[in-house]
C-alpha cells in the first residue's frame, strides 16, 4: 500500500546499528525508536511513555545513553547505535545480563533492555560505582516491578566481576 507519493519527504539515512551499516528510508523527524523497531526489526527497545521519562527506549548513540523516542532519526545520521540486541555476543550473555538474571533485576522485563543499557553505559564510564552512583546512573530509567534494589545489586555484582576478571 505504500505508494511513492507517501514516501515523498522521506530521506535516506545511514547509520551503524550493532556494528552493521544500515541505510533506511525515513521521514527526517521520525523517531529513532520507530525506525529501530519497525524498519530494522529491533524490538528490544520499548516505548513506555513516548516523552523521555521512563527510559524503556534507551539505546546508546555514539556511546551516549539516549531515549530513542526523543531522537529524530535524522539526528542519528552517521551515528553508531547499540541496542540490547547488540549486547550479548552469540549465546554468551554479557556479565550484566547474567547478573540481572541471578539477582532478580528483571521481573516483567519491559524496562530491562533500557535498564541494562543504562547500567552498561554507567559501567563503561565508571567501572566501580558506589551505590549512590548506581542510583544516579539509573535514575532516568523507571521500573515499576522491582523497587530497583535487585537491579542495584545486579549492577554492583557485574561491576565486581568485571573488575575481578580484568585485574
Amino acid at each position, binding site marked *: 500500500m505504500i505508494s511513492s507519493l507517501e514516501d515523498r519527504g522521506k530521506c535516506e539515512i545511514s547509520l551503524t546499528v550493532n556494528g552493521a551499516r544500515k541505510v533506511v528510508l525515513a521521514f527526517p523527524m521520525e523517531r529513532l525508536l520507530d525506525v529501530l523497531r519497525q524498519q530494522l526489526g529491533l524490538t528490544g527497545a520499548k516505548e513506555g511513555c*513516548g516523552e523521555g521519562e*521512563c527510559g524503556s527506549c534507551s539505546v546508546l548513540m555514539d556511546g551516549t545513553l539516549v531515549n530513542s523516542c526523543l531522537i529524530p532519526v535524522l539526528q542519528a545520521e552517521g551515528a553508531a547505535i547499540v541496542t540490547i540486541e547488540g549486547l550479548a555476543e552469540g549465546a554468551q*550473555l554479557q556479565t550484566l545480563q547474567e547478573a540481572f538474571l541471578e*539477582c532478580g533485576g*528483571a*521481573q516483567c522485563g519491559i524496562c530491562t533492555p533500557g535498564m541494562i543499557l543504562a547500567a552498561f553505559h554507567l559501567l563503561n564510564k565508571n567501572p566501580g560505582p558506589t551505590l549512590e552512583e548506581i542510583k544516579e546512573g*539509573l*535514575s532516568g530509567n523507571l521500573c*515499576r*516491578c522491582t523497587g530497583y534494589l535487585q537491579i542495584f545489586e545486579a549492577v554492583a555484582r557485574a561491576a565486581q566481576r568485571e573488575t575481578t576478571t580484568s585485574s
Partner: protein
Amino acid sequence: MNHERIVGTAVPRKEGREKVTGKARYVDDMLLPDMLYGATVRSQIPRGRIKKITFNPGIAWNEFVIVSAKDIPGKNCIALIGDDQPCLASEFVNHPEEPILLLAHPDRRALRKAVEAVSIEYDPLPAVFTIEESERCSEIVWGADNIFKTYIIDKGDIDGVWSRADYIVEGEYSTGAQEQLYIENNGMIAAFDAQRGITVWGSLQCPYYVHKALMALCSLPVEKVRVVQMETGGAFGGKEEYPSMIAGHAALLAIKSGRPVKIIYDRAEDMAATTKRHPSRTRHRTAVSRDGKILGGEIEFTIDGGAYATLSSVVLSRGAIHAGGPYYWPNVRIRAKAVATNAPPHGAFRGFGAPQSLFAMERHMDRIAQVVGLSPVEIRRRNFLAPGETTATEQIVREPIDLGKLLDRALSLSEYHSKKKRFSIENQAGTTKKGMGIAAFLHGAGFTGSGERYLSSVVGVEGCADGGVRVLVSSTEFGQGTKTVLCQIAAEALGLRYEDVTIAQPDTAEVPNSGPTVASRTVMVVGKLVESAARGIQQTLMLAGMLGDSYSADEFRAACRSHVAAHGELRSWAQYEPPPDVFWDDQAYRGEAYAAYSWAVYVAEIAVDLTTYSVSVNDFVALQEVGRVLHPVLAIGQIVGGVAQGIGFALYEKVIWQQGRMQNSQMTNYIMPTSSDLPPIRVFFEELGNVHGAFGAKGIGELPMDGPAPAILNAVQDALAIGFDSIPLLPEDIFEAITAHSPASDSDVASGVR
C-alpha cells in the same frame, strides 16, 4: 521440613534469558500480514446523551474502517460480573474517556488526526464526582440509588459496647486513586476468520476473562474464541479486567475489516482511560477500655467505583474483610459500600481494597494509642489476634501465628526504640524532623469466601515425548515469577530437575481454566493443583510398571518417553476441591473468608524536611510470615516492589481529577518512585508453613502493598506531632498543616476522649 531440593532455591527465571536479551515478545513487538492499526474515539464529557457524530472533512474517511455499537454482533457489554459496562457507548456516556467509536487504518500515523476529526455533540447531563456527591443522591447516575454493592459484617453485640467503653475513638481516613503504571501500556491484536473465529493476542492477566467477554460480545461459541497471552510488561491488577475491553475493540474492527487489527494505547490514553485503584473513605468509631483493649467498633468503608460496576463489589468485599486488621474484635459492625461516580471505572490494583481499609485501621490504631495514652507498640500488642480467636467474619485463626513475636522482631530489626529515643532529642533542634512508624496487617490468599469453590480451577501437567514434563495452566506471568515457581513445584513433586519442566504460554486453545492470576492465589491455590496433577503423571508411570518407587530424573524421563511412545498423549488433570473444614455464608458474610492469611509488621523511618516540607523514607523494615518461601530472590522482589508502590501510594502518586477526567496522565506529572527515591528496603521472612499451599506456600504478591502507607504516615505523626489521615501526603499538605496550626492546638486527641 526443608528436605526439598528445588523449592526454596533461587533457580533462574524461566523466561529470564529472553527478557535480558530483548528477545521476549510483547504484543507491540508482533506483526501480522495486512495488519491494520486501531484507535478509539472517546467521550469528552462526564455524562450526557450523544446527539450527533460528525466526520469532519480533511480526512480520507474511505480509507478507514469505522465501528460503532451498531456493528456489535452479540451483546454490547463487557461480560464480567454485572454486565453493565457497554463495549461502545451508543446513546449515553457515563464517564470521560468512554469508548464511542473505533477507527482502523493501515498507517498507524494516520489515526491521531482522524480521532481528532470526529466531532461529537452531546446533551450534557448533571454528573457526580465524589463519594459524598454520590451519597447525596441529588443526581442518580447508576441504578436506583448510586450504590453498586453493600455488605454488612456483624459480629457480637456492637450496640451494647458503647456504655461499657472508657474511651470512644473516632477517625475518618481517605485514600486517593492510584495508577498501576505498568511500564508496558495496554495492547491487543485480533484476527478473525469465519472458520476459526476470533483470536486475540495481548497484554493481559486473565485469558479466560477475555475469552468470556469475547464470546458474549461477538456471539461466538467457546471453540471459536481463542485468547493468547503475550509477554506482559507489568500488570499489578491493571490488566485484570480492562484488557477485555481492548480485546473486544480489536475484535470488532477485525470482524468488520476482515484483517488483523492491532490496538496499542499510548501512555496518556492508558492512564486516562483505564482503571485505577478505588479512592476510599473509612470511618472508625471504636470503644476501648481503660487498659487499651478494643471492646468493639463500627467501621464504615466506602469506595468510589466510577461509572460502572465492573469489579467494585469484589474489591469492596476484600476491603471490608480486611478492615479490622490483625486485631481481635469481640464486637464489630463493618458497613461497606461501593458507590457510582462519573469517572472511568476504578478497578483491580494489587491489594484490591485491602490497602485502603488497612491504611485506615493502622492510622486509627495510632490514634487510639494516643487517646488511651499507650505507645503505638503497646496498643497493638494488647489487641493482636491470637490462634483460637476469631476474625471479624468469625473465622477461627488456626495458623500458629504469634503477632507479638513478629512485632518484637520488627522492632529489633529496625532499632525502633533506640531510634525513637534519639529522634525525640534530635528533633528539638534543626529543620529535619525524624520519626518512626509501625503498621501491622494481614492479607488473605486466594479468592474470598466461596470464590475458589465457584472458580473450580483446573490445571494440567503433560508428560512429553522427550521425557520432560510441561505445566498447562492459564496462570499468567507478568513479572511475579509464575512460570518459574510453578515449574519448581512440578519438578519438586516429581523428583525432577528444574530444567526437566517447562510451562505452556497461556493460550485458551491449549491450557485449561486455572482461574485468573489475581488475589495472591497463584502459588498457593494453583501451585497446589500443579503439585497434585504432577503426582498423577508419576502414578500413571508407576501403575504402568515403568517407574519404581525411587528413581532418578533420567529414569523418569525414560519412562515418560516410553509411555508417550506406546500410548500417546500423557496428561494429568487436577481440579480444585474446597477443604472440608471451610465454611462460608455468602448471605451473612460470615465464616472462613480465606484459607490462609499472610501476616506482617512493617516499620518505616522517615524524615520531614521543614524547608521543603518533603518526606523522605530513610529506612524500611518489611517482616512477614508468608508460609514457605519457594524462591527467595523472587519473594524478595515481590516484597521490595510492593513496598516501592506503597511508598508511591503514600507520598508521590496523586491523580488530579477535573470533572471525572485525569488531568495528569503523563509520567512527567504523575510521579512514581525513581531509583533515587527509595530507602534501603530490608526484607525478612518468618516461615510457618501452610497446609493449603504447595509445599507450605501462602500468598505473597499483594501483602507488601498494604503496610507502607500507614507505617509512613504514622512515622510522620511521630516526627511532627501532627496526624495526617489522607493519602497521598504531598509537601503542600504538610506545609498547609504546619502553617495552619501548631501541634499544641491539635484537638484530635481531646475530642476523642469521653
